[in-house]
């Protein structure tokens, strides 16, 4: 028995704390926020134990790479119980811990703990304070269960649970109409994908005869599932991943989700829940690989998303919205890596991105908190002097996002670019590199316009102050991770921690890939960052928007497209107004005139009419009734005799 086999405890502790806080939180002093921190802190501690135990045991096996072990022999801990039996079908529920899970556990618990601590400062004095922490615990529990799940049904349940938590937290300020609208939009948009996921799970479960993820993958690889059938079911599965990870055309919900409290955006809409789609795709990647053109579709979706959201982010003025579009774009990067058959690059980027994007979101939260809910860049500026710690950590986070050497984002983005080259898509490499330039550009713009230059609104500026340590502490810790977490890609660093071969070899087992510096590629990466940063710096230096206005006037059509987010919302609104409401009109017409008037009211009308005619048979005269009885009896007797012969 090892701690790894009992990794479900990581999820069980926050789940129990959710019940406690939801039921009793309002009676506890300070809404029980310390209990929330305690629960996620315990999960964090257990995570370290699990990682240590896992890495140690893997080390004991000498590492799969060196000994050329087959994928199936790769160490994965499982622990499951019999959940229910229907006829011959036995449903087992349990956990499955492999390198991908271990990495996800680390990301989730680390960011969750930081966000919990940060929220104590950020949410101070908010209404329903206890409820915020309660739902946060539920989210952490469901997210951990999602990555631990060893079968598709448990994964689906957790998948829906994180969706519910996302809905509850986006709509946390439900007094605001925009918040409830955003919550509904997020829920319904992801729901479209989730239906796909559900169909995919059912199709796969039916074909494979089991819901166990590894068995399903095995069945797909062995060709037990017909190729068209497999393609269709994997396509449905991927729809779910697209919805959750806000890939085009489902990306519209994530920017609106910024209506939620900022710590929620950091935890759910940057670091953990939105990467569930990436996780699912990485987990099922061997099945995707054998499912027709699925890999190409994944690459294309990621590429389109990365480019489109890169453009949209250029013209956003809300700090959080820039970060939201950036998140969608970075998820696109991960999907490109997955489509190129490099889950190790995707998972690596997932990890570094989670750290530096959570840092950026919490940093923006610190700004929003300090300026009393001003998050428009047009109102801010020059905050560096007022909030040095926030500004410094935000700068490092921005540089990591822009992919500056030697911060975390540089190494992981490099790996993704490398994976597109390995896969053989030169065009994909060029487009992705361009998306990376856009990333560097809008990140720099965000930083320059918020923290540098002269304050645009003197009143806001003067009331700004640096946040307390409970908020800057998590910033500093995440900042540290944003600097160092990229180094695990090196074999020497990996060897020191326990996985010789570095993170990329640690994560993916079927095509072990060991990191080595490709100087041409690294140079390109550096050039990408430099181009993006310097062009944005030149354009916005000192907080001036003169040059950018000129650029907008030079290409008004393109600028119009970008500021209107390529009219996605308008297209959906049009589709809903014309298509959905039109269809609803037909259905309601059918219901009213056919079902209701003919079916329901019709039978009543027939009864009423026949009654109005037949009532005259009721004469009230006793002999008439007696005659009726007599005739009836005689008829029955005659018929009875005739039938009996």
């Amino acid at each position: 028995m090892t701690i790894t086999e009992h990794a479900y405890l990581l999820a069980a502790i926050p789940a129990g704390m959710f019940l406690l806080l939801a039921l009793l939180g309002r009676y506890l002093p300070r809404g029980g926020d310390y209990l929330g921190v305690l629960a996620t802190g315990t999960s964090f501690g257990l995570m370290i134990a699990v990682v240590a135990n896992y890495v140690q045991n893997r080390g004991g096996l000498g590492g799969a790479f060196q000994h050329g072990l087959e994928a199936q022999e790769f160490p994965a801990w499982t622990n499951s119980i019999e959940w229910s039996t229907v006829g011959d079908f036995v449903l087992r529920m349990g956990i499955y811990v492999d390198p991908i899970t271990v990495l996800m556990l680390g990301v989730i618990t680390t960011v969750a703990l930081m966000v919990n601590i940060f929220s104590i400062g950020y949410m101070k004095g908010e209404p329903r304070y206890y409820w915020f922490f309660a739902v946060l615990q539920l989210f952490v529990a469901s997210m951990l269960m999602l990555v631990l799940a060893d079968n598709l049904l448990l994964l689906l349940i957790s998948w829906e649970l994180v969706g519910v938590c996302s809905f509850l937290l986006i709509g946390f300020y439900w007094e605001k109409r925009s918040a409830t609208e955003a919550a509904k939009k997020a829920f319904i948009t992801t729901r479209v994908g989730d239906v796909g996921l559900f169909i995919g799970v059912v199709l796969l479960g039916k074909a494979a005869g089991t819901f166990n993820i590894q068995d399903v993958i095995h069945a797909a690889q062995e060709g037990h599932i017909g190729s068209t059938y497999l393609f269709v079911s994997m396509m449905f599965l991927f729809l779910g991943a697209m919805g959750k990870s806000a890939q085009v055309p489902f990306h519209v919900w994530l920017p609106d989700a910024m209506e939620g409290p900022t710590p929620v955006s950091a935890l759910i809409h940057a670091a953990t829940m939105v990467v569930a789609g990436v996780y699912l795709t990485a987990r099922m990647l061997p099945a995707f690989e054998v499912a027709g053109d699925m890999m190409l579709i994944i690459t294309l979706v990621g590429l389109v998303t990365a480019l489109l959201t890169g453009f949209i982010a250029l013209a956003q003025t809300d700090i959080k919205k820039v970060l939201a579009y950036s998140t969608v774009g970075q998820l696109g990067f991960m999907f490109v890596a997955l489509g190129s058959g490099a889950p190790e690059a995707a998972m690596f980027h997932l990890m570094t991105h989670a750290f530096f994007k959570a840092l950026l979101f919490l940093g923006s939260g610190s700004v929003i908190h300090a300026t009393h809910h001003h998050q428009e860049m047009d109102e801010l500026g020059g905050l560096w002097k007022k909030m040095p710690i926030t500004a410094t950590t935000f700068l490092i986070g921005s540089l990591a996002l822009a992919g500056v050497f030697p911060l975390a984002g540089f190494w992981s983005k490099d790996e993704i670019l490398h994976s597109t080259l390995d896969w053989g898509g030169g065009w994909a490499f060029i487009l992705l590199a361009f998306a990376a330039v856009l990333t560097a550009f809008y990140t720099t713009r965000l930083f320059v316009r918020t923290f540098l230059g002269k304050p645009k609104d003197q009143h806001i500026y003067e009331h700004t102050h640096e946040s307390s340590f409970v908020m800057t502490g998590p910033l500093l810790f995440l900042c540290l991770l944003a600097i160092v977490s990229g180094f695990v890609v090196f074999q020497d660093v990996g060897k020191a921690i326990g996985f010789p071969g570095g993170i990329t070899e640690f994560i993916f087992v079927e095509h072990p890939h060991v990191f080595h510096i490709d100087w041409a590629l690294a140079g390109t990466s550096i050039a990408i960052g430099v181009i993006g940063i310097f062009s944005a710096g030149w354009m916005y230096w000192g907080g001036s928007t003169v040059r950018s206005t000129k650029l907008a006037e030079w290409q008004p059509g393109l600028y119009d497209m970008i500021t209107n987010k390529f009219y996605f919302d308008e297209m959906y609104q049009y589709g809903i107004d014309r298509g959905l409401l039109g269809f609803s009109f037909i259905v309601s017409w059918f219901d009213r005139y056919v079902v209701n008037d003919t079916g329901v009211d019709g039978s009543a009308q027939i009864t009423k009419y026949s009654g109005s005619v037949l009532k005259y048979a009721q004469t009230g005269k006793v002999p008439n009734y007696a005659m009726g009885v007599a005739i009836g009896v005689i008829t029955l007797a005659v018929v009875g005799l005739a039938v009996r012969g």
Partner: protein
Amino acid sequence: MVPLENYLVLSAILFSLGVYGVLARRNAVLVLMSVELMLNAVSMNFIAFSAYLDPSRITGVIFAVFIITVAAAEVGLALAIVIRLFRNRATVNVDEAAILKW
């Protein structure tokens, strides 16, 4: 021994008389008397069948006793109604008691 058929024929005649009385008479008291005739015809059938088919058991006789009891109660009730009718309408003609309709 008298054959069973004789009883059945007598019973049928009695029953038919009763039916005729119920259908043809207008006087409520006579209608009630005809109903009694029909009931007695049925009782006779029961007793005859009981005595001829399964003499060791007295099921039919028991039935007849019950029918007499129920008939007595019924007549008591019905005559009370007839008296009320007469008090209100000064008639016992069933054709005139015809307001219970649409």
